[in-house]
């Protein structure tokens, strides 16, 4: 079986058994997405590189804990990446947490480093999500951006924007409900 035919879950099983080459397989499939997300969160490519390295080393150390019934490998990886990047931006770049431009260019965004496959359905889904985010009212998109990319809490967003706590909670709730309603059921992360 060529590495391109092997499922992500099978690759992780190999990693859990100590196969370092399997980490390279996963890297080739997902490093672009991991690095892209880290760069959006941190606004700094050097820090994003550190985070990307941490993510794949973390996968190496924790492959045995991956549960296929809980999440796909890509979801698992991206959760690790987002959590790690937010940890770093909280500690190292507190001023970056106020930047809210992370989604401004999504409408015209292209992927210089395509994801794990040229699967048309996956590309379609990504475009669908981007369009749904772009269609959000600006105040909802901004609040959501601060929560999603910068890890700010409701209270921190309220303080940063100078808006009532209840307003911030409502905007984030409404944004997420809108996205859930707009994105088709067939879309899978």
């Amino acid at each position, binding site marked *: 079986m060529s590495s391109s035919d092997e499922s992500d879950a099978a690759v992780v099983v190999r990693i859990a058994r100590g196969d370092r080459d399997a980490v390279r397989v996963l890297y080739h499939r997902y490093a672009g997405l991991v690095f892209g997300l880290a760069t959006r969160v941190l606004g700094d490519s050097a820090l994003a590189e550190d985070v990307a390295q941490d993510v794949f080393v973390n996968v190496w150390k924790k492959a045995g804990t991956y549960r296929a019934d809980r999440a796909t490998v890509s979801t698992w990886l991206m959760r690790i*990446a987002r959590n790690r990047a937010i940890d770093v931006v909280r500690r190292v*770049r507190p001023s970056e947490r106020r930047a809210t431009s992370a989604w401004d260019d999504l409408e015209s965004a292209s992927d210089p480093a395509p994801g794990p496959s040229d699967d048309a359905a996956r590309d379609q889904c990504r475009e669908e999500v981007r369009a749904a985010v772009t269609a959000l009212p600006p105040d909802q998109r901004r609040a959501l951006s601060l929560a999603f990319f910068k890890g700010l809490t409701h209270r921190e967003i309220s303080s940063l924007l100078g808006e009532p706590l209840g307003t911030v909670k409502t905007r984030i709730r409404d944004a997420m409900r809108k996205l859930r309603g707009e994105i088709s059921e067939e879309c899978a*992360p």
Partner: protein
Amino acid sequence: MTDEHSILELLPGYALGCLDPEDERRVKSHLSGCATCRRELAGFERVTDLLSASVPAAEPPAGLEDRIAANLHSGGSRRRVSWSPVLYAAAAVFILALLAGNLLQWTGVIRRGPTDASRLLTVMLKGTNGAPDAYGTVVLDPADLAGVLAVTGLRRLDAEHQYQLWLIRGAERRSAGVFSVDPGGYGSLLLTVPADFRDFRAIGISIEPAGGSKAPTGEKVMGGTI
């Protein structure tokens, strides 16, 4: 508003990880006994995961793959801890103290001939919650009003920030210099120590804009008592 209704309102924020601590505790406590809320949460977690997957990919830097591979071959950890944490910490500090003492010798900072080690003052630094892996040593020579700092375990900062060392005396914070760390988290700094340094009671290290600040503005990452 029923408790379940108020929890449902908080689920989108819980999926994003943006709830304030008290709300997060409420939701977590409720979820274990509410299948309806768990199903709702799954829907919002899917949205969060789709948001992550929709962020445009970016070409990783050249060499990152090899650096990861090298890290795996070294044990997959920046620190291979086979000793107890206490023993490891003691060894790291001892090695740093040796390096710091030797650095004073080799840089010619000590002008009055061979160093009498007994006159050197050594201050051990430990990382705060913001840098739990950090350890360091400051070695001061009172006779020459000179010193050196050696640290390990600090995260590399971006080009706009550096670490700054402070001598602390009551409310006073006097800068003793700025430094950066290498990709391995190691850093050093030669200090010019003020004549009244013995009045200072502690040392701290914070994250500051590159070039330093007049007073601490950023997160404190290390500290020690003189």
